[in-house]
């Protein structure tokens, strides 16, 4: 019985009228968890009932706590007939299971009904008391933190990145069960909502178990998807990157330490590190222990100058030392005992052993095979020695090594932004698709089929990466598209080489140690490749290379390029080779040298397909896929050249299947990487140079293209420094243009793999006009309308060249459904599809014109073919405005530094209190769950409460403003206020108690920001409260009355936003970051006046504080902790 869940129903408001006679409602509430149900009294005749119930207590297993949602049902009491349901609230209590996340859920939550939408709100209080579970074989994984964010979360530091975790669970879809014929749509929808809640809870728990097994304490880049397979069932699957995270503590302060930091300081710091990792509640979570010991130990090594100066000489010197070296190789010393002497000699030796050889190898990259084997050896050695660190840890570490071995088959990372120095080179985009027929008979207990399918694809991805000379895949994601019984599984990522110095143990590079903050480095690979090219690991590259270009350098062997490419010497360092074009799925590294600004580039394609059934259909689709991909790639390449750019980031290719067509949409952010050669223009060549008018036509087009390129270069401020071209004379294979296609495709009928998408000579990118298709293509190329003045757009997190964001952000979702005429040609379809996307963008620009100058970031397009002749496009993005005056790069750097400083300060406050609590509650660090949960109830001992209250003040300032505006004192609601205040037994010191008290006075609702990005401009995220993962179904049988399909969906999306905001506010947060709408399935039947829609959204609930306020408020508590944080200011 390891947990007690407590819930209290306080009040309701804005309830709907359920009794026509009295125009009132006799409401009561059922609180259900698992199989236990409690009821409140009936509050008669009121639309604003005040139940103020007792605490309902559920004593449950923590396994159930993870799987089950708390279900609150509001009903209208009826004496003579059955009680009518008003609506439900599902509360995911997962955030309460992790001590570092939220401690209480309290606030107004919308009461939701799948038929009527939001029907009033209910005020609830939910708490969880967790007990220790010493059972090693338990099935729960409480305490593992989940993040949707695809980078190391802002207030954490990665101690270790363990690698890929995946899981899937399957079940029957209630919508397709026989019982669905006899139950109401409401019952069916609710069954589905509940099931998906349960399944995602279970999935999260299972992933959590895997993470614990691997020795991690968190999942970053958690991506959960639903496959609605219709009759064959419902699949919920998730992937993520297991990490060991540590809340940021005083360590960044070491940035100012002299390179040989004094041991005394280490002594002071290391004990602080230990309590900070106590967030992990699990008692068998020795990784925490080992992490902290490693930490202090790593710290004691006193930042090896040697390593760092060698690694990144020109990189922000202030940050380099912060990257503490955590090699377990030095674990020979007892853990936690700081070395009083300087860096031990083994360090140097080891450094050399891992780096100098690689240097030489990389120079003559032929012998790279040896190198690869060398790296793991180093890792293995260190792993072994780590085992000696402490006796009890031995077993665990062994376990870790084992899991590392198991995991090595997928060295995948769902991260798209990396700590500096983690990612060395990028080979290029790797992707794999496979067409499957869904099996009719389905056994929920055997998800093996689906597992096997994904396994196949992952293996393929892995082999592609290998072919590119890379040992890892970053920015990895998986998706499906289902139409009837056909399912396309896709996976894509970016082949990359990761730094060996982050590798921990295991013969392969699955485990990595990180020592740094989320700042990013990576690179991009130009072409996709296949073929065997002898693995290479050019680990030494980084040594004398500025981080701005290092990631561009080719990871593969230039003598054995498996695909045609133009290599040149890097335009930054002039030492290493770079390709002419780079495509990647990851985000643009912040330190990348970029010329000018970037822009969104989309390739859009429609292909008709004959209607078919079963096997034949799958065949037809898999035959079409390679062509589709090839054309998308060509379009991307052309558009990239047209904009005078040479690299794509955040590439996402989505292929959607319908009964009579396939839809392809590739989105990416184009940039001009300074390190890469300037792209050549586009030349048009006619096939039949006989006709004079034809010639003229051609030259006209050529002129247009040239003009567009010039205009684009101007718009995106691309004016690279002129450099003498020096194409390497090395034996680069002759470009075999567009010839080597679909090689691996022939390997299996239902699998499509890499395509060799090469392009011509660099300077003369020739487009041949040999038929009308090509003419159309070129026209299409030119019809892409430019973004209006003052706007920029990208699908990545940040826009190169723009730093000074203001705090104005506007997240939005836009959905369009387009009905096509029958019998369209491919061209016609293409044009329609392309126009659809273009018009949608234009509409967005128009809508957001008041925010100019602004950038649409993270433009995420999702296409679907909901039924025949319908195309659905959904976009979620955030518009962020910025100041026109561009600050210099320096300005940004220093800004970042203050950011880090701010973190330091803040963490210190938290740290400080944690210690206090640890002392008061339990001397045993493993007893932390209790101690930590108490933090919340000790407001007086909690320095950061200052920040919180200021935040609450800001929230309430809205109220003030409104009051002022309306000149009102709201005397009317005195009655409510008093009774509500009685009813809110919130711990003081919590921001919410303040806020909600205010909101009781009926004045305002807390503002919750939402953004698909991992950060909020001008603000510091001080706490992650847990993952938000919500699934809603809405159905109507009075479509016309609700304003048609648009009115219906508009309301529904607004409701989803409202529910997300309310749940975040109830957790005590004021923003959702990394928000995404992963599913939006819309179905209509206008003849029956019906429509149904399913939406799945996710994100991370956070508390942020404006930087300006942070500075103000942190002054006071800072003084208390200055001594421990000395030097923090000096940065």
């Amino acid at each position, binding site marked *: 019985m390891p947990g007690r869940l407590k819930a209290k129903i306080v009040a309701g408001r804005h309830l709907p009228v359920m009794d026509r006679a009295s125009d009132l409602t006799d409401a009561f509430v059922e609180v259900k968890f698992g199989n236990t149900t409690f009821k409140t009294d009936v509050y008669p005749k009121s639309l604003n009932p005040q139940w103020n119930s007792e605490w309902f207590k559920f004593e449950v297993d923590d396994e159930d706590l993870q799987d089950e949602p708390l279900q609150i049902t509001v009903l209208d009491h009826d004496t003579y007939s059955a009680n009518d349901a008003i609506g439900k609230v599902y509360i995911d209590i997962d955030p309460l299971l992790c001590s570092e996340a939220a401690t209480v859920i309290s606030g107004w939550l919308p009461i939701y009904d799948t038929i009527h939408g939001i029907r009033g709100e209910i005020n609830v209080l939910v708490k969880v008391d967790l007990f220790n579970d010493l059972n090693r074989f338990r099935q729960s994984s409480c305490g593992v933190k989940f993040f949707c964010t695809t980078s190391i979360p802002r207030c954490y530091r990665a101690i270790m990145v363990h690698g890929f975790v995946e899981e899937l669970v399957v079940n029957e879809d209630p919508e397709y069960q026989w019982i669905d014929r006899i139950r109401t749509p409401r019952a069916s929808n609710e069954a589905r909502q509940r099931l998906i809640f349960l399944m995602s809870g279970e999935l999260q728990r299972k992933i959590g178990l895997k993470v614990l097994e691997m020795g991690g304490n968190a999942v970053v880049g958690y991506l959960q998807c639903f496959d609605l397979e219709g009759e064959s069932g419902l699949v919920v699957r998730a992937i993520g990157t297991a990490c060991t995270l540590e809340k940021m503590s005083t360590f960044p302060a070491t940035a100012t330490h002299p390179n040989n930091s004094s041991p005394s300081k280490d002594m002071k710091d290391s004990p602080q590190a230990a309590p900070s990792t106590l967030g992990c509640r699990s008692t068998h979570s020795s990784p925490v222990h080992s992490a902290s010991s490693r930490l202090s130990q790593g710290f004691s090594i006193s930042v090896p100058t040697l390593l760092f100066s060698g690694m990144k000489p020109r990189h922000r010197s202030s940050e380099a030392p912060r990257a503490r070296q955590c090699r377990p190789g030095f674990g020979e010393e007892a853990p936690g005992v700081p070395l009083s002497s300087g860096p031990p000699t083994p360090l140097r030796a080891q450094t050399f052993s891992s780096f100098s050889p690689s240097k030489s190898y990389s120079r003559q990259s032929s012998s790279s095979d040896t190198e690869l084997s060398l790296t793991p050896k180093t890792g293995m050695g260190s792993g072994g020695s780590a085992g000696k660190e402490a006796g009890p840890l031995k077993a665990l570490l062994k376990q870790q090594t084992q899991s590392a071995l198991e995991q090595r088959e997928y060295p995948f990372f769902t991260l798209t932004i990396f700590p500096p120095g983690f990612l060395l080179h990028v080979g290029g985009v790797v992707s794999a698709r496979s067409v499957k027929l869904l099996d009719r008979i389905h056994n929920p207990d055997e998800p093996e089929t689906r597992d096997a399918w994904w396994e196949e694809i992952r293996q393929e991805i892995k082999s592609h990466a290998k072919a590119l000379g890379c040992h890892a895949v970053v920015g990895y994601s998986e998706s499906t598209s289902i139409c009837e019984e056909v399912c396309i599984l896709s996976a894509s990522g970016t082949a990359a080489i990761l730094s060996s110095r982050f590798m921990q143990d295991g013969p392969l590079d699955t485990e990595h140690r990180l020592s740094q903050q989320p700042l990013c480095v990576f690179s991009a690979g130009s072409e996709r490749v296949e073929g065997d090219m002898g693995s290479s690991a050019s680990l030494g590259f980084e040594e004398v290379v500025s981080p701005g270009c290092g990631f561009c350098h080719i990871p593969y062997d230039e003598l054995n390029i498996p695909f045609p490419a133009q290599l040149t010497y890097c335009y930054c360092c002039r030492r290493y080779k770079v390709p002419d074009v780079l495509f990647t799925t990851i985000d643009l590294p912040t330190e990348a040298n970029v010329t000018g600004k970037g822009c969104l580039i989309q390739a859009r394609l429609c292909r008709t397909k004959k209607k078919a059934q079963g096997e034949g259909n799958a065949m037809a689709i898999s035959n079409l896929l390679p062509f589709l991909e090839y054309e998308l790639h060509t379009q991307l390449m052309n558009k990239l050249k047209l904009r005078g750019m040479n690299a794509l980031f955040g590439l996402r290719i989505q292929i959607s299947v319908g009964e009579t067509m396939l839809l392809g949409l590739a989105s990416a952010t184009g940039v001009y990487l300074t390190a890469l050669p300037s792209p050549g223009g586009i030349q048009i060549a006619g096939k039949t140079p006989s006709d004079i008018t034809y010639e003229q036509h051609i030259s006209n087009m050529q002129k247009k293209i040239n003009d567009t390129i010039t205009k684009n270069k101007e718009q995106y401020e691309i004016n690279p420094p002129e450099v003498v071209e020096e194409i390497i004379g090395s034996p680069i294979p002759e470009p075999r243009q567009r010839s080597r296609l679909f090689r691996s495709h022939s390997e299996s009928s239902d699998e499509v793999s890499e395509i060799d998408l090469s392009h011509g000579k660099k300077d003369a990118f020739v487009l041949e006009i040999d038929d009308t298709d090509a003419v159309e293509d070129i026209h299409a190329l030119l019809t892409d309308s430019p973004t209006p003045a003052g706007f920029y757009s990208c699908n990545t997190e940040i826009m190169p060249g723009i730093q000074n964001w203001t705090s104005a952000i506007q997240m939005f979702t836009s959905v369009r459904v*387009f009905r096509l005429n029958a019998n369209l040609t491919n061209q016609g379809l293409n044009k329609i599809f392309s126009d659809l996307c273009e018009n949608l963008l234009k*509409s967005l620009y128009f809508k957001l014109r008041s925010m100019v100058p602004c950038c649409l970031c993270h433009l995420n397009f999702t296409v679907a073919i909901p039924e025949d002749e319908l195309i659905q496009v959904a976009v979620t993005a955030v518009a962020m405005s910025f100041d026109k005056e561009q600050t210099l790069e320096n300005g940004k750097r220093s800004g970042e530094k203050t950011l880090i400083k701010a973190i330091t300060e803040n963490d210190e406050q938290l740290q400080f209190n944690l210690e206090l609590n640890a002392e008061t509650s339990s001397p045993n660090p493993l007893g932390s769950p209790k101690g930590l949960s108490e933090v919340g109830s000790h407001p007086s001992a909690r320095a950061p409460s200052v920040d919180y209250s200021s935040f609450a003040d800001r929230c309430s300032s809205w109220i003030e403003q409104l009051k002022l*505006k309306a000149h009102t004192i709201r005397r009317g609601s005195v009655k409510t206020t008093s009774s509500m205040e009685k009813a809110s037994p919130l711990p003081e010191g919590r921001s919410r108690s303040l806020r909600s008290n205010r909101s009781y006075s009926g004045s305002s609702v807390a503002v919750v920001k939402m953004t698909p990005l991992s950060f909020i401009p001008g603000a510091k995220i001080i706490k992650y409260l847990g993952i938000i993962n919500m699934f809603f179904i809405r159905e109507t049988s009075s479509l016309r009355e609700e304003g048609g399909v648009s009115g219906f969906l508009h309301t529904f999306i607004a*409701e989803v936003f409202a529910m997300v905001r309310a749940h975040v506010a109830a957790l005590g947060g004021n923003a959702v970051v990394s928000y995404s709408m992963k599913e939006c399935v819309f179905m209509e039947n206008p003849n029956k006046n019906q429509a149904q829609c399913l939406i799945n959204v996710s994100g991370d609930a956070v508390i942020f504080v404006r930087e300006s306020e942070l500075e103000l408020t942190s002054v006071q508590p800072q003084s208390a902790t200055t001594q421990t944080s000395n030097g923090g200011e000096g940065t």
Partner: protein
Amino acid sequence: MSVELDVFVGNTTIMDKEVYQLWLNGYTVNDAVKVRIEGGVMEECEASAEVLLSDTMDQYRTFQMCERLLHHPAKLANQLLFQIPPDRQAMLIERYYAFDDSFVREVLGKKLSKGTKKDLDDVSTKTGITLKSCRRQFDNFKRVFKVVEELKGPLVENIRQHFLLPDQLARDYAAIVFFANNRFETGKKKLQYLTFQDFAFCAGQLINNWTLGAVDNMMEDMDVDLDKEFLQDLKDLKILITDKDLLDQHKSRVNNETSHPLSLVCNALRGKTNVFNEMEANFKNLSRGLVNIAAKLINAKDVRDFFIDLVEKFIEPCRSDKWTSIDMNLYLTHYTNSAHILDTFKHHAVWTRYMGVIKSCILRMYHD
């Protein structure tokens, strides 16, 4: 090919003030698009008509969804569906409750009933305001009326609190409610020259001085009805015209005062002797008019005719004698004050309360 569905939802609800106004004015989507195109927003933002149409539809839908909340502005502040910054909320409310002066003149003093609502299409054709907009305005009046009708306490304050309206707008609504409740006649031809603001001013005077709430805020009764006791007392003023002595005395006092050579004010008016002459001649009529109005106010029917009586019995005679408003002010001041010096006149309090309002109303109404 057609766009089947097109929605845009922002985390912060985006609302264009211009489109909001068009919506409030009752324009159809297509008309609104036309107006916007003429307004030149397209050139400004490099947009096409399609984009404009999509945007307008979207905004209209948003407003329709919000309308339900706007009916209870207090709900707008604590609803969760739309995240709207407070300044926007205030704007939405203010504009939703704003009304056209030409419209309100048509319904001012009328019963806010279904019957009146049925006649709105006539009002619409007469004023050129769309029927939709007329209905919104009418419904607003009715809604405010219904809410405050039952409430105790100061009328303006109640409206301000329940509908979160800015001060001026709350006062205007108080006037509308007051007029509707007392059914003052405002539609007669002779009253056509008066603007809504004239009436609103007068309503303010009446509310502040003649209602029960004016005497005692804590009273159970409200601001909407006139103080019955006071109206009863007004009958006593009749003595001023029925008692011949008093009338003469009053007249001579007023004349003395107005034509007193030492009176600074009068010096300026000396030249206009004819005005004084006429004043003297008309004194009995004018005084009789005002006192009769007072005496009759106890009858509900005569209350309705209050304004028309003021115009017929006082303003029109003065206007035909070409009094200036300064003359009028002077006359009324002395007329009021001199009554207090009359030996046998006892009803000073009632007189002051009555004449204070009458004076300010007449002064406000005395224009072309």
